[in-house]
């Protein structure tokens, strides 16, 4: 029997001495993280990501070329959605800083024009026979354009001068969003037929300006100056300011007919500075076929907690945002009004 015990001990020792690979560990079970609970009128709302086909979706969409950070708790028939508009559109590297936000104003419907343009908008309107417009690649049928909704617009004007010549110039305009610095490209031609171009802000704010003439790099300097010849010039300035603002401005010069120019009409983006959509939120709730939206845009979304929760599979930083909303809402289909009250935890990602 003693031998048997020795054998047993030997076997145990042998096995215990063997190196064992570690099994991969599974993540811990948890409860639903993202949710919305509340009521719309008498109806109880309770959505949880991962339950009843409901899932949390974070993405971005463009609204008039402005990024909207979108959190969508969605299933096949229902969703609870909050999107937040970007800000600092004139600073390309900027991403919205969720952790600085305590309240989200609702993005209302603007009723006053943010931009109005016509032939008369130009200082040399007397030299212009007709104008036509193109907004974000879409030709406009009228000489007069009016834009009410905030966005980052590319507007092209096609000018027919009195001598029959036709020229086109495009510029980018930020409407309904705050600009960190407002400026425009100005020009004058002196008696020696020398063209001088500059921007109308103090030189100290300028980091660099890259000037292109007829799509060819010309000079990097705060000002552009050269002698005009009898030809047309498309002058483009890529402007970088010390505060991070980067804008591109264009003007058109006709060396032969110096009155037939098209000035930098992007300065018109400051026509209406009463209404901005920076960091404004849109909220909507879908219940079957009904979509409910806030009725009173004075109401706010209050954020009680904003936590950076990691990086998603696309490498985007994800924020967990907990908040509440309480206010009147309207059924967009039936125009029925009801009070909506929600508590939510949603995820927003930043690209």
């Amino acid at each position, binding site marked *: 029997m003693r031998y048997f*015990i020795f054998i047993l001990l030997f076997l145990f020792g042998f096995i215990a001495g063997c190196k064992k*690979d570690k*099994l991969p560990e599974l993540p811990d079970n948890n409860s639903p993280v993202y949710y919305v609970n509340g009521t719309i009128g008498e109806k109880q709302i309770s959505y949880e990501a991962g339950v009843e086909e409901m899932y949390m979706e974070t993405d971005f969409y463009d609204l008039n070329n402005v990024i909207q950070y979108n959190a969508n708790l969605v299933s096949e028939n229902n969703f609870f959605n909050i999107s937040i508009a970007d800000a600092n559109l004139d600073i390309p590297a900027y991403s919205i800083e969720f952790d600085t936000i305590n309240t989200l104003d609702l993005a209302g419907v603007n009723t006053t024009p943010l931009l109005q343009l016509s032939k008369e908008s130009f200082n040399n309107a007397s030299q212009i026979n007709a104008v036509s417009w193109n907004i974000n690649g879409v030709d406009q049928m009228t000489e007069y354009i009016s834009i009410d909704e905030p966005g980052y617009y590319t507007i092209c004007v096609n000018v027919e001068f009195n001598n029959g010549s036709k020229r086109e110039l495009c510029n980018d305009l930020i409407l309904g969003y705050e600009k960190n610095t407002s400026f425009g490209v100005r020009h004058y031609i002196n008696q020696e037929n020398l063209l001088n171009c500059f921007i109308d802000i103090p030189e100290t704010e300028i980091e660099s300006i890259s000037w292109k003439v007829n799509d060819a790099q010309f000079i990097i300097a705060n000002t552009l100056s050269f002698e005009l010849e009898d030809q047309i010039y498309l002058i483009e300035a890529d402007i970088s300011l010390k505060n991070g603002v980067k804008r591109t401005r264009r003007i058109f010069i006709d060396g032969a007919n110096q009155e037939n120019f098209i000035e930098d009409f992007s300065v018109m983006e400051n026509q209406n500075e009463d209404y901005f959509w920076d960091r404004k939120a849109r909220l909507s709730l879908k219940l079957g076929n009904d979509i409910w939206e806030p009725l009173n845009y004075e109401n706010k979304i209050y954020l009680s907690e904003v936590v950076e929760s990691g990086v998603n599979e696309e490498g985007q930083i994800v924020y967990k945002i907990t908040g509440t909303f309480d206010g009147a809402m309207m059924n967009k289909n039936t125009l029925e009004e009801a009070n909506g009250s929600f508590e939510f935890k949603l995820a927003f990602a930043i690209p």
Partner: protein
Amino acid sequence: MNLNDENIDQLFRKSAENVKAPEYSDAYWAEMNQMIDAEEKNKKRLIIWTFFGTIGAALVALLLFFNNETTNLNSSYQISENSNPAQNEASDAVTNHSSASADISQKKIDPNQDLTSIDGKSKTLNKIEVEKYSPKVDKKASKANKTFNLSSNNSNKTEGFDKVINQKTKNNAKKVLVNAKNKTFISAESNIAIQKLPAKLIGFETSSETEENLIPLKNISNQLHVSYHAEAAFGVSESYQNNTTSPWRFSVSGLARLEYGQLVVNTGIGVQVESPANLQVTERAKVYGFGLKNYENTLNYKSFTQVFIPLEVGFKSNNSTFGVGGQFHSIVGTRMSLTSKVNQEITAKKDFNNQMAGLNRFSGNFYLFIDQQLTDKISAGVRVGSAIGSRIADSHYFNSVTNDQPIFGQITLKYQLFK
């Protein structure tokens, strides 16, 4: 609050609206089906066990009956009690064998007399008051409603004296020589053969009426026959899961066999390999985030290597040994393949050795066995049994095992190494 019918109805409606309906998942149905299957399997197992248990009990009963019959036929020395019909018969036997008793009464056994058995072993009975073993025994025993029926049959085979039963009745203390090996003994002087006193009856008698102590005539180890055997066993087992191959079991072991009369006890140590085990356990995690991710680690154990300690108790009859046995197992090695899945999509596959995740290291089994002696040294047998206790350990491992305690059968071959 006014709890009229309308309000109550409203309350119930609101409550019903507020309560979330249970989430449906196909996986739950699958789990439920497996649970139902397992339950049905358990019922089947119960039936099988009942069947085998009945057979086993019948075998044991048969064996005992067979032993009793043998004892009755051969018995010439009985303790009987008048209050018992069997004892009355025994009293009659006293009358029938009065002449033999008379012979006994006339003889005195010398305490120092050597008693020689047929097997040639010489035994000296010192300090034995055999002189009290006389007709007085019958008379006094009769007074005390006790009759010792000392009779002889035709069998005069003796192997030796093994015990002295120091038997004290209420009226008189007497010591009786008893052959506990189912053999007769012969007094050296009287040549009186006294056949075996079934130990079972003695025990009954002494516990009820007498203060009776068994005093070993010599060291009891002399009565034990110990031999050492090597055993190889090969067989199959029920599969742990439906639609999988039944695993085979191969074991080798070293056994010490202890024989005491007809009683046989085997114990020792062995190693068993079970393959392909096809025992599958699954660890799952539900992780909520943007949605629900179902993580799975499925561990498919392909084989087990186990050290075991067997313990078998049986009865030997002629060349056959019947009995029950059990084995205490400890897993010492495994082969296993891991499949990791996320939302049912396989993300990783890897083989591992000597993992114990999801398993109990220790387990056991219980079986019935029968061995047939083929030659002096070789015996062959069969054992049929079932595992005891669950193989699956951690509760967080969901297992698709439908038969956690499989029935197995093995053919055994024993070879006697030495005595």
